């Protein structure tokens, strides 16, 4: 399991790949995040993204999440986002993706 920088960390916990995002995850962290998401998908375990300590995001990060969620679906892997901080939820709402991201029927 990898920790490419302080903002993004991927760990295995009882057979679940947990990707924890902290602080600001924006375009400067995009490559790291993409690599971790690919790593998580390749593990073949259910994936959970923990955003409880995430403070700020941008569209690059949102796109990567959608991309990962769709990829996980093609491999029949569970992909869940929880818990999530209030400010992140609000940013997802402002960006018009909250419903899309959390509606399983949209995968």
């Amino acid at each position, binding site marked *: 399991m990898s920790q490419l920088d302080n903002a993004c960390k991927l760990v295995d916990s009882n057979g679940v790949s947990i990707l924890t995002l902290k602080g600001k995850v924006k*375009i400067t962290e995009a490559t790291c995040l993409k690599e971790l998401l690919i790593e998580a998908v390749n593990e073949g375990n259910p994936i959970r993204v923990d955003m409880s300590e995430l403070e700020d995001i941008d*569209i690059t990060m949102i796109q990567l999440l*959608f991309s990962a969620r769709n990829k996980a679906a093609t491999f029949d892997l569970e992909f869940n986002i929880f818990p999530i901080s209030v400010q992140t939820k609000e940013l997802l709402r*402002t*960006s018009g*993706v909250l*419903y899309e991201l959390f509606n399983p029927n*949209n995968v």
Partner: protein
Amino acid sequence: MSLDLQAIFIEEATYLLEDLEEAFLELESAPDDMELVARIFRAMHTIKGSGSMCSFPNLSAFTHEFETAFDRVRNGDIKITKELIEIGLDSHGFIGRMVKTLDHVNPSLREESKNILSRLHKYSPKEGADNPGIELDLSAPDEVVSLDWAHYRIRFTPNPGIFKYAIDPITIFKSLAELGEVCNVAYIKDIPDLFEINEFACYMSWEIIISTQDSRDKLVELFEFVEDDCEVNVEMINQENDFDDDYKRLGDILLERGDLTKEQVSQLFEKKPLVGEIIEESGLVPKEKIDSALLEQELVRSDREQKKQIVTNDSIRVSSARLEMQMDLVGELVISLASLHQLAVDRGDVKLNAISEDLEHLVTSIRDNVLGIRMLPIGGTFSKFRRLVRDLSSEQGKQIEMVTYGAETELDKTVIDQLSDPLVHLIRNSLDHGIELPEERAANGKTEKGFITLTAKHSQGHVLIEIKDDGKGIDPDIIWKKSQEKSLTNGDERPSDKEILQYIFAPGFSTAEAITNISGRGVGMDVVKRSIESLRGSIILESVLGEGTTITLQLPLTLAIIEGLLVEVGNESLVIPLAMVVECVETKKSQLESSRKGQLIRVRNSLIPCLPLQNWLGNQTHIPENIQIIIVNIDDEQYGLIVNDVIGQQQIVIKSLGSIYQSIEGVSGATILGDGAVALILDLPQIVKLFQVTEQV
């Protein structure tokens, strides 16, 4: 600006307008009263300031002109004139209409404002100048003047390379949110596979619906710094001021957006009714686009609904019908509770009785609460009369001032609604028959100006409304003469002055020498009395020749549920409104005293006439030796109702009688008792008339 803030402004403006009208009317009789001038100035100033803050710019501009004129009055530059007060009252009406249209200046309002402001011109600082000093742009078309809430649809498609310039669309969305209410739907279908995605490219696009009072230009401005790196299309989707019509259907929205062609919509229509699922099934439009269109539809519809509510409702945002329904339900609850209580008593079940008592406590609280919601201050009705008195007195060449007390006194809305017409009639009578012309008053040593005083107050579970004038009073001799002429009397023997005055309430009685448009058609006071009695109230008339007349209306607080005294007469249960009950006396039939007019009971040195209710029910032979007498107060007179037994006091839910039973004299309604039996509610003034105090026990 939130719609809530608009609603708060409308509420505040409505209150201020009431105050403004009152102040203008008072100013008419005290033009030098600088306190009143200051009050008007303050009200106008507040309307102007709050209007400006709450996006009523036209209203604000209008009141500014008026405020300026009154500032000159305040500074002593100009004097209050009758014309200025007329302009003020007209402005009051205009402002009220502007508030109702949410600051939208329609053609008729534009004409009205032009007229008022041109009259106001001569009092403005720029007197004599060509420009009347009006800053309100009255020549502009409605669409420009009006700054109503509008909905815009923004389609935002950034170029893939937009992130290179350190542009994050989220920043733009945050700025948009500051201009109004935003609904944003992102299109994500172009985001590639995780293994292929270029994390530095933008694949998403957005469709945003914003409800704002800002202009389209302001919205476009937000995208200015990205205009070379994206496609932006901002279009207004709804700015109708008439929001009575339903908003576009889903198919129309998608057609307007270019997501569907006319042909495609027609084809879908041929299949079955056009709904989101059908369009989605057709595969012509992606689901997120349908969702976005549905969102637009929902947003505009809900906004229109909200606007409708703001315009039509005042601070009580519950329809009267709902309140009525709530009251009916509480009534049913009271009846069910009575049944439960009856059951507990019949079974002698202590636990059930305890529950019933707990419930009674709760139900009483709910009942009082619901009744409280229906209570409104009578001040709103009073203030209408000030204008009436002002207009009619000047029409008649009289000088009359109306004074009110107790405007905060609360009454059930139903009572207030039904009270307006009788009050108008009584005030018109005072105006027409009571208050004399100024020269006549002066000749009689009175002030030229007459007074009509309206007072409302609570008294022993009732509301008393007093209409008092300091006019010429009623001459009993004239009334007696007229009554004889109209064959309204029972004989030639002249009754007391007090009794003679009661002929005024006889049908067809009128002493007016000329029929005016105010009163004097002889169809008034009997109707007034009937109206008041139908409200379970009573009317008392007192008059002193040369000094004036006072009419006192005694009204119940509510018409829905009353406290009643349940009594037994023969085999029947009857309800006597508790508010009319003075006391209960247990006595024997043989102890009653006889008089020419019937049986009397002596209560603390007073002889009170008795009315055996058994006779009214047709059970004369069943009057027992041991009787109960309920002393009641009707029209300021006391009577004793002879009953077999007193069952007790209880809440009475008033049910109206069907049309077949409405003609039964002496009954005003019915109620359902705990055991399911029906008890009649007595109409005591009618009962007294029926007996005419001649019955013998």
